[in-house]
C-alpha cells in the first residue's frame, strides 16, 4: 500500500502521536500525583484530588505501555538500545510506577493516617519521577548517547548512570516535570472546587511559568552552549533496508537547527509550546478551566514537537560511535511489520479515543468533599 519510506515517516509521526498522547493523558494524572501532597491538606481533601483521576489513571497508563510496545514493534533497535543503555533510569521509572496502582487502589482500604500518608507520597513519587526521567532522557538524546554496535549488531552502552544526570539533561528534566505538573494542575482546577481548586490554579500557573523559562533556557543553551548536533554525511536511501551501520554521521554545531533553517514554519512548534503554557496560565486564573486544559495540551504538542523536529531524522544519536546513530531510516522494523502496525493503529486508535472520551463523559463534573464522604467505602 505505502512504500517503505512513507511508512518510516508515518511511524516517526505515530511514535510522536503516542508520546504526545501519553503526555496529555498519563501526564495529567502524573501531574495530579505530583501536586497531591501540596494541594490537598488532610485526608478528605487528598481523596478529592485522587478521585479526580481515580476512574481514569489505569486507562491513561496504557498510553505508556502501548507507547513502549509500539517502539518495540516499529523501532526494535531503539527499544533495545535505549532501554538497556538507560538501565538504571528505566529501573527508576519502573519502580516509581509501582507506587501508582497500589497507591490508588490500596490507599483508601485502610483507615490508619500513617498508611494513607505513606501512599500519598507513593503517588507523589509515581507522578513526579517518571516525567523527570523522561525529560532527562530527552536531554541526553539531544547531546548524543555513548553506545556502539559490533558486527552482530550487539549494542553496548559505554557511559555510566551518573553521566546521564548532566546539567543540560537536568534542565530538560525540569522542562518535562514542570510541563506535566502544569498540565495536571489545569486538570485538577477543572475537576475540583473551592480551596483545592485555588491551590491547583496557583500550582499550575507557577509550573507553567517555570516550564516556559526552562524551555527557553534549554533552547538558548542548545544554540549557544556548545552542544553539537548530528548530521548524516553519506547519501541515505530512505527506501533501503534497516542497517544502522551503513551510513556516516558527523557532529555539527548547526546539526539541530538545520531543519528549522530549511522549514521556518517549524518555529511555530516552540512558539506553540510557549504561548500554550502562558495562555493556559491566564485561562486557569480566569476560571476557564477546560480551555486552560486544552491550552496546556497544545503546549505539550509544541514542546515535544520542538525536540522531535530538531532531531529528525535522528532518534538516538551516538556520541561515541556517531555512525551507529539510530535514525528513522535505519532503526526500524521491516516493511511488512511497519505496514501491519500502521493498520492496527489506524483501526484501534480512533476506537480508543471514542471509548476513553465516553468514560470521561460518564465521570464528568466536579469531585467534591461531600461526594467523598457519601461514598466512603467505594471512593479511592
Amino acid at each position, binding site marked *: 500500500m505505502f512504500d517503505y519510506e512513507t511508512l518510516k515517516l508515518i511511524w516517526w509521526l505515530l511514535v510522536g502521536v503516542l508520546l504526545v498522547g501519553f503526555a496529555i493523558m498519563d501526564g495529567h494524572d502524573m501531574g495530579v500525583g505530583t501536586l497531591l501532597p501540596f494541594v490537598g491538606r*488532610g485526608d*478528605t*481533601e487528598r481523596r478529592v484530588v485522587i478521585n479526580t483521576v*481515580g*476512574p*481514569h*489513571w*489505569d486507562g491513561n*497508563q496504557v498510553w505508556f*505501555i*502501548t507507547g513502549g*510496545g509500539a517502539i*518495540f*514493534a*516499529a523501532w*526494535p533497535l531503539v*527499544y*533495545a*538500545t535505549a*532501554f*538497556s543503555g538507560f*538501565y*538504571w533510569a*528505566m*529501573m527508576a521509572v*519502573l519502580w516509581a510506577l*509501582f507506587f501508582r*496502582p*497500589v497507591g*490508588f*487502589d*490500596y490507599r483508601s*482500604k485502610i*483507615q490508619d493516617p500513617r498508611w494513607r500518608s505513606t501512599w500519598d507520597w507513593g503517588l507523589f513519587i509515581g507522578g513526579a519521577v517518571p516525567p523527570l526521567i523522561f525529560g532527562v532522557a530527552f536531554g541526553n538524546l539531544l547531546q548524543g548517547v555513548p553506545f556502539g554496535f559490533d*558486527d*552482530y*549488531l*550487539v*549494542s553496548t552502552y559505554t557511559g555510566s548512570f551518573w553521566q546521564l544526570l548532566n546539567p543540560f539533561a537536568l534542565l530538560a528534566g525540569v522542562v518535562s516535570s514542570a510541563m506535566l505538573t502544569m498540565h495536571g494542575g489545569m486538570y485538577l482546577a477543572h475537576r475540583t472546587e473551592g480551596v483545592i481548586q485555588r491551590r491547583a490554579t496557583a500550582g499550575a500557573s507557577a509550573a507553567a511559568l517555570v516550564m516556559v523559562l526552562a524551555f527557553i533556557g534549554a533552547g538558548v543553551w542548545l544554540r549557544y552552549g556548545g552542544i553539537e548536533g548530528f548530521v548524516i554525511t553519506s547519501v541515505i536511501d530512505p527506501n533501503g*533496508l534497516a*542497517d544502522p551501520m551503513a551510513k556516516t554521521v558527523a557532529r555539527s554545531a548547526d546539526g539541530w537547527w538545520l531543519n528549522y533553517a530549511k522549514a521556518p514554519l517549524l518555529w511555530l512548534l516552540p512558539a506553540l509550546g510557549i504561548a500554550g503554557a502562558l495562555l493556559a496560565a491566564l485561562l486557569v486564573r480566569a476560571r476557564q478551566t477546560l480551555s486552560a486544559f486544552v491550552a496546556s495540551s497544545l503546549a505539550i504538542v509544541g514542546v515535544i514537537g520542538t525536540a522531535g523536529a530538531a532531531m529528525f531524522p535522528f532518534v538516538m544519536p551516538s556520541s561515541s560511535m556517531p555512525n551507529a546513530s539510530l535514525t528513522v531510516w535505519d532503526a526500524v*522494523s*521491516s516493511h*511488512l511489520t511497519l505496514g501491519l*502496525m500502521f493498520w*492496527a*493503529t489506524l483501526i*484501534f*486508535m480512533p476506537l*480508543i479515543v471514542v*471509548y476513553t472520551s465516553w*468514560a470521561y463523559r*460518564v*465521570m464528568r463534573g466536579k469531585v467534591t*468533599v461531600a461526594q*467523598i*464522604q457519601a461514598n*466512603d*467505602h*467505594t471512593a479511592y
Partner: protein
Amino acid sequence: MISEQLVDLSRLQFAATAMYHFLFVPLTIGMVWLLVIMESVYVMTGNVIWKDMTRFWGKLFGINFALGVTTGITLEFQFGTNWAYYSHYVGDIFGAPLAIEGLMAFFLESTFIGLFFFGWDRLSKTQHLMVTTLMAVGTNLSALWILIANGWMQNPVGAEFSYQTMRMEMTDFWAVMFNPDAQAKFVHTVSAGYVTGAMFVLSISSWYLLKGRNIEFAKRSFRVAAAFGLASVLSVIVLGDESGYTVGEAQQTKMAALEAMWETEPAPAGLKLIAGINEAEQKNDWEVEVPWVMGLIGTRSISKEIPGIREIKEKNRERIINGIVAVVALETLRQHREDPVAKQVFERHKADLGFGLLLRKYTTDVRQATPEMIQKAVDSTVPRVTPMFWAFRVMVGLGFAMLLLFTLAFWSTLKTNCAQKPWLLKAALWMLPAPWLACELGWFVAEYGRQPWTIYGVLPTHLSVSTLSVGNLYGSLAGFIGFYTVLLVVEIYLMQKFARQGPGSLGTGRYSHEPVHHHTPAQA
C-alpha cells in the same frame, strides 16, 4: 564473550518477575467472567444480592488487579532492559503482538475497569453490564496476544532471517497469529485462569458457609463457582496444550524431556506415571508405565512414533555442525555484504544458523569449536529431565484433584445441600493454592523446557541478554525482590482482611461484619 553469570542472573530475574506476575494474572482472567455471570443474573432478575456479589467479588478482584498491572509493566520493560539483543533480533515479529495487545486489549480492560468500580451510580444497569463485559473481553484478548507472542518463541513460524539487518523479519503475519502452538496455549492458559478464578470464589464461599455467615450470598457464589470451575477444569484437561506437542520440534523436545523418554519407543508409546531418572547415564532406573496412553495423547494416533532424547540429540548434532558453516558464511557477509560465494553457502545452511550460534556460548570463533564444545552444545539442546518430569506430573496431578473437587462441588449444588457437607467445604478451602501452583508449574515446564533457546532453533538464550555488568543485575534483582516482597505482604494482608470481612465491607447494611462509619467532618 558474554559471562555465564550475567546470563544466569538475567534468566533468574526474568523468571522471578514473570512467575510473580503470574500469581495475579490467572485470577484476573478467570474472576472477570464470574463477575460478568453474577452481574448478568442481577440485570436479568433484578435481585440485589447478585449486585452485591458482583461488587464484593469485584472488590477482591480489584486488589488482585492492582498488582497484576504493577508487575505487568516490569515484563514489558524487561525485554528491552535485560534482553536487548533478543529485542533487536526478533522485535520485528515479537514486538507486533505486544503492541497490538496494548491497542486492542489493555486500553479496553483498563478504561472499563475504572467505570466498573466508579460507574455504578452513573450508568444504567445494562450499560454497567456492558462495561463489565468489555473489561472481561479486554482481559482475555490480552492473554490471546501475549500467548501469540509466546507461542512464536516455541514455534517460530512466518519469519525469516536477514543477514543485511542481522535479525529475524516477519514474512507472514497470519502464520504468526494462527500458529497452532499459540492457539493451543491460549485455550489452555485462559482455562487455567478460569479454574483459578472459580477456585478462589469457591474456597472463600466455603469458608463463609463453614462459619455460617451470609449463607444466601455464599451459597449463590458457591454455585456459580462450582459450575464455572467444572466446565473450566474439563477444558484445561481435555484441551490441554498436549495437543500442541505434536507441533514443531521445541514441543517434541519438551515432550521427550517431560516424559523421560530417552529412547524412541515403538508406537504407541506408554505413559510413565513415575520413574527413577538417571540423568548421568541417560536412562530410567525403573518406571511405572501405562501402555499406549502417551502415544495417544502425544500424537493423537496409534502409529506415529514419538522421538526419544537420544534421537533428538543426534539430529541436533548434525544441525550444529551444519550451523558452523552458516555462522562462518554470515560473518563473511557482515564484512562483505555482496560476497556471492558466502551468500550461496549461507542460503544453503541458514536453517541451521541458530544451532551454529549455540557454540558461541563456548567460543567466539565457531571455526575453532572443539569436539568437546560440540558435545556440550548437543547435550544442552535437551533440558534437564528431572525437573521437567516431576513439574509436569505435579501439575497434572493437581489438575485431576481439582477436577474431582469441582465435580463433587457441582454435584452437591445440584442436590442443593452444598452448605451441609463440612468435609467438602473444608476440602474446597484447603485446595485454594492448587490452581496457582499448577499454573506456575505449567509455565515452568513451558519455558524451562524451551532451553537453551529463547526462540526455539533460532536464538540461543545466552546470546539474547543485554550487555550489562553483573553488578547491574545484582542491583536490580535486589530491588525487585525488595519491592515485590513488600507488595505481596500488603496484597495478601488486604485480601485476607476483606475476604474475612466479607460482603459486609460494602457497607450496604445487608450483611454481617458491617464496618463502622469513620468519616468525620473534623478530618476534612
